[in-house]
């Protein structure tokens, strides 16, 4: 057994697991975070995508030991009690998910894309989603959703920097 301590969605979590435990299994079985899905178990489908230290990864391809001490964000960590993440909102509004099984992975892949590039073009979006296989949607509405979410996030960041400026100049 190995002991791992990781920060998941801002909370420190600990577990003692066999060394062959994958990050996906750790999240789903030890931490009851079932948002990341097991679709192929070999890194082809992307349904298990989570973000580790800012990078989207296939959680089925990482051992629990590898993430010891690292920072993990899962689909459960995007929304707050008050609001959906704009990516989740855009996916919902555009009908970007059908059966939904690939959704958490695709949304996390999108989140990682935005962390790197706030204004992706369609090619960037297709590239970022290429690790998330989807059989329902043909990716069409998913790409629309990502574009919509990018617009919302950019306008939010413009507004918030505007707000900050106001605060600074206020007496």
């Amino acid at each position, binding site marked *: 057994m190995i002991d791992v301590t990781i920060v998941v969605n801002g909370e420190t979590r600990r577990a003692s697991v066999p060394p062959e435990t994958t990050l996906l299994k750790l999240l789903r079985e030890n931490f009851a975070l079932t948002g990341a899905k097991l679709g*192929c178990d*070999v890194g*082809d*489908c992307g349904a298990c995508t989570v973000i580790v230290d800012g990078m989207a990864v296939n959680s089925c391809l990482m051992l629990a030991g590898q993430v010891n001490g690292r920072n993990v964000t899962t689909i459960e960590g995007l929304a707050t009690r008050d609001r959906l993440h704009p990516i989740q909102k855009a996916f919902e509004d*555009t*009908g970007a998910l*059908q*059966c*939904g*099984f690939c959704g958490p992975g695709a949304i996390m892949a999108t989140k990682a894309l935005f962390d790197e590039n706030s204004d992706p073009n369609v090619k960037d*979006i*297709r*590239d970022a*989603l*290429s*690790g*998330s*296989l*989807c*059989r*329902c*949607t*043909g*990716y*069409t*509405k*998913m*790409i629309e959703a990502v574009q919509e979410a990018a617009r919302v996030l950019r306008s939010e960041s413009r507004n918030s920097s505007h707000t900050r400026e106001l605060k600074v100049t206020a007496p």
Partner: protein
Amino acid sequence: MKRRGRGIACMWYPIGFTVDANASAATVKVNEDGTATVLTGTVETGQGSLTVLGQIAAEALGIATDDVHVVSADTDTTPMDTGAIASRTTYVTGNAIWLAAEAAKAILFETAAPMLGVKVSQLEARDRKIQVKSFPQRNVSIGEVAHRSQVVLGQPAIGSASWNPPTVAMDPETGQGKPFATYVYATQIAEVDVDDETGEVEVLRIAAAHDCGTAINPMLVEGQVEGGISMGVGMALHEEMLFDANGRHINPNLTNYIMPTSLDMPEIAVDIVQGFDPTGPFGAKGVGEPTAVPTAAAILNAIHDAVGVRVTSLPATAEKVLTAIKAKRAAEVKQIPA
């Protein structure tokens, strides 16, 4: 060099098979506040059936989709249903829910008629109200009627119904008969680039015009078409389960079974063809399966248009296309007189 081509394919597809029994049953309960609960034995498998069936119930009762809760997929609690197959849910299950909603509404009308001082036949349900036809200002809210029905009169507004497309057996000798209740039609046109040095085919865009009768939810119809096209692209160019000489599967994984990724999909423009089928709920037919039907044909015709070769076995892998291109060139060389 890349060569561009275009290809067209149209199709027909049956909705509501009638060669076997194809029944759905449903129950619609109007709650005391005018919202409704639908019971159906079908299963949501991603198509959006719960949403569409909720919209059908809502339309029949004159309430909003958000006022309806759909309970599905439990043999202990929901009525029988032939299931989420054969593009039948909107058409067959939808009709059953529509009829069940009408039965529940009939109870509401019985209650409302004396409240409004008119005959049942003069009533309609609109905008969460039961109102007198042509005199919408004379109305009472559905919630009030439903409450009165259940709590005062003891006649809860619950309707149950089943529907089975009329069945006509086929003649076993000639196959003549009416095997399906109705059909939908569609056309897809594909534009491709074919690399004449590698045989690689890139599908650039697809225009898809699909008939589904009334589109209960156009957004979900588009989603079905886009998804069906992705399966068609895979069928046309990439996907194939392969077996060795001993019958063991060679590529049982998503590394070697090549399905389209987001980088392999074309731009898709979906048009819904105006249609209305009087036998379907509010004129609706269905759309799930037909979306995957014409894509491969359209792409193969586009390849033919681009490089003049007819690939007759699917998938049209790059190797197969290049082999055909080389064979064509060799044949052309032979034809030149010495």
